């Protein structure tokens, strides 16, 4: 083992000299990071070789997309690639985690999870959507502890227009106690009702049976509150503990929140770590990241017991790909006072996130020894096209009156309301935010997406504008080509690519020679390297 590490250290020293291909280089992991120690050990156990490292160009693109939902700017790529100070990757991660776009991106993720939309079947209504989204956005910006954020979500009462967190229990298509219970299980524990028997679910639902809603004279205002008539409720928590609550003295929702958010309860931390892992990789630490198995009731006492062999998940084959890593992530999350940013930091610094994507072997993917290739989220792809061409789509809604128009340069990532969309956004799989399940976001590739990218008149117009500016701002063909590649693929063109370009340019007759620029941009927009995370 020691020998193994020293090999890595040696190669670390030669990082700067390591000649990398376009997409990967031979070494560059920090072997002393605890998360890497766990991963290396896991890979060794699975007989998997430590994977090659993603190249700098690939890495900055990954970090920018994952943390901030955008492509890196050409200047950012240039600075990063030519920076040869040690620890530049960790510094880059901090830069993107502390950018304002970090909160934009994570607010979109949270809005999907919390089903923030005005209309069917959630019906938060526009004013509430704005308040709710903005509040969550600002809390993510300051990295508020998720423990306190979720405590507020689970216990807030008040007007949907004034108390942002009170919208949590409104954002459910089914507001019956069982419907709310299912929603709470999915949102806070990444679990489905199928993990529980009918009577267990009913007993759990009693904790939400006193929630009431009433409207006011203000149009579409709704107050969330608890039934003021004191009642004695006998309910059961998801771990089976029976509780008797006098609602006159205690809000039953608080009983659940206190249980969920105490430090020796892993359910919440397990759920959040799987969410963030899923957001970073398109797959979770558990294969079914939002359909997690149950833990046995005695597990809440101690870590070792927690993940012991008595875990009921064994039977189902629903297990984390690496239990030690799952434990570590949970412990780190709790130690950091439930900091979302800390989870992202851990993940993006890990060898799993920095691994090359060149070999997409399923066995490697399962063990996170290869970075999974997958299509960009709808909003990110549309925003990337817009950012490169400086031409944004317009978003508006005719429902309800008065009409809503988002400002002209709005990014799709920043659309607060799941009910406001566009045909293009929908066709690339923007989730309807009806249930909050991961599967709502459609990742499939379809012919209509291809038609948009290949043949949209609107996109052509923007692409031609981009080329006009390019020709105005750069005199030299090499500089122009560099700029196109940096803007779209976050890297410099290779020598081979320069040659292919030259060959194509000279093959065009004089009359159509100017098309070489728009054609090159078109080709890169339609390339997998642009459309996919890699």
């Amino acid at each position, binding site marked *: 083992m020691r020998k193994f590490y020293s090999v890595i250290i040696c190669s670390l020293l030669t990082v700067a000299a390591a000649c990398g291909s376009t*997409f990967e280089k031979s070494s560059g992991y920090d072997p002393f990071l605890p998360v890497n120690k766990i991963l290396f050990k896991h890979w060794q156990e699975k007989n998997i070789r430590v994977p090659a490292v993603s190249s700098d160009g690939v890495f900055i693109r990954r970090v920018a997309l994952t943390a901030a939902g955008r492509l890196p700017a050409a200047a950012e790529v240039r600075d990063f690639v030519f920076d040869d100070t040690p620890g530049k990757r960790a510094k880059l991660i901090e830069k993107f985690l502390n950018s304002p776009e970090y909160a934009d991106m994570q607010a979109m993720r949270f809005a999907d999870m919390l089903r923030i939309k005005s209309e069917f079947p959630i019906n938060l209504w526009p004013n509430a959507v704005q308040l709710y989204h903005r509040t969550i956005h600002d809390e993510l910006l300051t990295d508020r502890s998720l423990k306190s954020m979720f405590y507020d979500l689970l216990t807030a009462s008040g007007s949907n227009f004034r108390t942002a967190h009170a919208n949590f229990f409104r954002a459910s298509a089914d507001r019956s106690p069982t419907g709310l219970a299912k929603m709470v299980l999915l949102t806070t524990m990444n679990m489905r009702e199928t993990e529980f028997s009918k009577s267990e679910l009913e007993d759990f639902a009693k904790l939400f049976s006193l929630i009431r809603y009433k409207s006011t004279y203000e149009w579409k205002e709704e107050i969330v509150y608890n039934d003021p008539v004191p009642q004695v409720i006998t309910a059961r928590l998801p771990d089976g503990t029976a509780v008797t609550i006098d609602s006159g003295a205690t809000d039953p929702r608080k009983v659940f929140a206190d249980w969920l958010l105490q430090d020796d309860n892993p359910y919440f931390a397990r759920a959040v770590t799987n969410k963030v892992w899923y957001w970073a990789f398109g797959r979770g630490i558990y294969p079914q990241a939002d359909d997690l198995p149950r833990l046995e009731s005695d597990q809440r006492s101690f870590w070792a017991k927690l993940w012991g062999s008595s875990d009921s998940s064994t039977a189902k084959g629903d297990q984390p790909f690496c239990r030690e890593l799952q434990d570590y992530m949970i412990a780190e999350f709790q130690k950091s006072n439930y900091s979302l940013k800390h989870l992202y930091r851990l993940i993006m610094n890990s060898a799993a996130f920095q691994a090359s994507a060149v070999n*997409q072997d399923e066995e490697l993917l399962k063990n996170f020894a290869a970075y999974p290739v997958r299509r960009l989220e709808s909003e990110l792809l549309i925003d990337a096209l817009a950012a490169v061409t400086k031409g944004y789509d317009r978003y508006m809604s005719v*429902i309800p009156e008065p009409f809503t128009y988002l400002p002209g340069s709005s990014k799709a990532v920043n659309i607060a309301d799941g009910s406001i969309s566009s045909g293009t956004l929908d*066709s690339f799989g923007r989730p309807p935010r009806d249930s909050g399940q991961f599967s709502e976001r459609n990742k*499939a*590739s379809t012919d209509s997406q291809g*038609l948009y990218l*290949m043949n949209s008149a609107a996109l052509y117009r923007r692409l031609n504008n981009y080329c006009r500016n390019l020709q105005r701002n750069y005199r030299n063909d090499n500089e122009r080509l560099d700029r196109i590649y940096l803007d779209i693929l976050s890297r410099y063109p290779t020598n081979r690519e320069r040659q292919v370009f030259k060959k194509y340019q000279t093959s065009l007759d004089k009359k159509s020679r100017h098309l070489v620029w728009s*054609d090159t941009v078109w080709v890169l927009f339609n*390339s997998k390297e642009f459309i996919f995370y890699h």
Partner: protein
Amino acid sequence: MIDRREFLKMMAMCGVYGAFNRVSGNLLAAPVERKREPARSVIEIWVWGGPSHLETFDPKPNAGKAYNGDYGDIPTNVKGIRISEFLPKLAQQADKYSIIRSMCHRTNGHETATYLMQTGRMPGSGITYPAIGAVLAMLKSGSYKGKLPPYIALTTNKGRFSENGFLSDRFKPLATGSNPNNPQFLVDGFVAPGGVSKEHVLRRQKYADELDSFTRSITSCRELREFEQASLDAQAVLSGNDAKAFDLNLESEAMRNRYGRTRFGQCCLAARRLVEMGVPYITINAQGWDTHKKHFESMQKLGPEFDQGFSALLEDLSEKKLLDTTLIWCTGEFGRTPRVDYQEPWNGGRNHFCHCFSTVVAGGGFVGGKVVGASDAHGERPVERPVSPVDLLWSIYELAGIDPAQKLPNPRNFDLTILPPGGGKNKLRELYQEQI
């Protein structure tokens, strides 16, 4: 001996596979004892906002100015049927369609009423149901071989809810955008933006393949292969003829004028061209009918456009012998208050009215020249045979060859029937050309 329901149930089970893989034949659309072919395409004319039944298919000439604004009725080419004087051309086609004058439900909000009229369900169950267009697009995708999407909206979506509900995004309507009344109907993505020749497209594609370092370096995976297939499909659309359906300039000047040079009229023409391509479900979402203020002034514009486009569509489909296999239904989510509000700020406006309104059906196995139900003297309540949204949807499904009592195959594995169980009792059997 198995009866028809059993048979359909069995077929539905087989259909689950076919519906998602586009490989099965039209298993679901084959009730055994049926002679005529089920409707191949459906055109929905969605009079978005709610048309006044009094100024369309249920005029009340004797109700007085407070109700009819002094507008009257005219005879049609079917004895005994009279419609509003706003629709003289449709009056000449009355033998081709039937009028339901006793539509009713209980919700006066656009959103909820649209959802109800489109899905046959009230919202609130925790599930967003798919609209009829998405369901038919899915169940008919086995027999539809065209390259255009199976559900097309001219020109915008309704936008009240995700119309594919819990079904795959593939059955979301393609909103064409643009305006078919423009010199060129530019359906973004489907119609070439111009300036790029076919040879250049080929040359560019070769350049793309040569430049593609990524594909050269990476081992393939499912996602990448799926993307490649989708790109090939898209290229097939671009090089094929299907998208020509959107090129209305291929029609003669006379034909374009016949439908009226209006957005609505040219939408009707585009719908006919899409029917010829075999697209299973087309919806025309007509706009501007939510006439709270100055209703009669608005009708001066809306009426003639609607009259010309819809009548030309009926006549043209019938001449081309397509009306038998094309089912048309035309409705708003509700009607408008029969009593006119002459006060400020409405100045002769009509509001939302769900208690009684009119729907028109034609072709695809519906008989023409009939009236179902009737409203009272003011058009405020049905006086005979009230028809609910489910009754109407049930009949459309049946004539399109789908038993709405069958299970609806879906990717989320909800155990649900297409329409609420037992909903077929009051279906519009009196309008079926042939009893099912």
